[in-house]
């Protein structure tokens, strides 16, 4: 049971949605899959006056390849990603990530955009979208704008999206690549990440590294990327990168893991993940979806 009352709107166009959001002066929450929002409503973690369901707005549920860009609409669920041939071919890391998100009953409903809008530290999509140089597109009263995923996460459950804006879609910049999403959890099914890393290697020894669940938000590891830049991967280079892990992350101890365990595992995951990304870039290595830890 949800203890407090709220109003509910189901706009059928983006214009209507932004109008409802701007006209409403109290607190508002957008509803897509609802797997976070309904749980938060029940816990009284959020208590909006109005819930705006965006599921009746057409056009937000598509995955589209446009040259070297992949557009993923804000209503695309984790199951949609897993079942998409376009995603499997061009952005396989999205599937490797999506398959670790909870279980089918959640993935059938939860959207990837909702995942980054909820912006919890263990957000699975964050590190992978950072590795894919993603842009978030929003629409608000002032028109459309876009934000780099690197500037998206402001703090715990806080993003660059303001109260009167709606995310329409994400754009991923596609290049040939090899990548991994390595997620540490106690068991499959419903557990959240204890620590996670998304890694992509692009041709020309260009790397992206981003961590999840070891800081208040998903974080891009710029120092590690810097030390790797332009260098072919070898034992020494990987060791230099691994030595920087503890400077990049700020893990905490909670019921899922201790800070020390998280930090140590991030080192292991980076070491194995870099090696696997490189093998995948060369067309070899473990198939996407294979667990590295």
């Amino acid at each position, binding site marked *: *049971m*949800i203890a*407090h*009352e*709220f*109003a*509910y709107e*189901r706009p059928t166009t983006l214009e209507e949605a932004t109008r409802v959001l701007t006209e409403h002066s109290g607190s508002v929450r957008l*509803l897509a899959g*609802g*797997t976070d929002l*309904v*749980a938060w*409503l*029940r*816990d009284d973690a959020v208590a909006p006056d109005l*819930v705006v*369901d965006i*599921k009746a707005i057409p056009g937000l549920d598509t995955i589209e390849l446009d040259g070297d860009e992949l557009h993923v609409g804000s209503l695309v669920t984790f*199951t949609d990603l897993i079942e998409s041939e376009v995603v499997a071919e061009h952005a396989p890391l999205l599937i490797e990530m999506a398959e670790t998100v*909870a*279980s*089918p*009953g*959640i993935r*059938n*409903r939860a959207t990837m955009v909702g995942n980054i809008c909820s912006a919890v530290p263990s957000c699975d999509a964050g590190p992978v979208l950072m590795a894919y140089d993603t842009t978030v597109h929003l629409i608000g009263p002032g028109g459309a704008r876009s934000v780099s995923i690197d500037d998206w996460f402001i703090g715990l459950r806080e993003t660059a999206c303001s109260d009167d804006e709606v995310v329409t879609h994400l754009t991923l910049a596609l290049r040939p690549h090899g990548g991994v999403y390595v997620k540490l959890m106690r068991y*499959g*099914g*419903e557990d959240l990440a204890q620590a996670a890393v998304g890694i992509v290697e692009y041709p020309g020894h260009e790397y992206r590294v981003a961590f999840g669940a070891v800081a208040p938000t998903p974080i891009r590891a710029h120092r590690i990327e810097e030390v790797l830049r332009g260098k072919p991967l070898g034992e020494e280079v990987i060791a230099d990168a691994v030595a920087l892990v503890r400077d990049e992350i700020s893990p905490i101890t909670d019921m899922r893991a201790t800070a020390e365990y998280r930090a140590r595992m991030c080192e292991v995951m980076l070491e194995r993940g870099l090696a696997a990304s490189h093998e995948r870039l060369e067309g070899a290595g473990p198939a996407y979806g294979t667990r590295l830890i």
Partner: protein
Amino acid sequence: MELSLNVNNEEWALDVAPADVLLDVLRERVGTKSPKIGCERGDCGSCTILIDGRSVRSCLVLAVEAEGHEITTVEGIGADHLSELQNLFISNNSFQCGFCAPGIVLSATELLARNPSPSRHDVQEALSGNLCRCTGYEPIIEAVLAAGERNEEVSA
């Protein structure tokens, strides 16, 4: 709010509040008691229903979101006679207390509809969000695998 709900091919017109959760509306207003109230936070799978053929946790859905969609519960699946899968659950002794059963039957039904002869891994993955406190899962997995084998025989 006015809500028209299709549950197991039956139309319902209900007056609900936006804060009403689908699980509660199904149990208390429609009278379908097979979705169970477990954790009420998406962790256990005992409230699983199918919406348009997809397994969904009804404790995480507002009733108003279901407008225009088709809901299936175990009452719908076993309406005339038990499904093949349900019979296999019985013959494999797949349940003890049975609290998890409706959710597991529906998750497995979704799996078999999309993937008629699943591997053990497929079955484990499909049921990974359904907790069972009694059986240790093995008899459940065996029953779903057996259903898959029958599907294979039929199509062979």
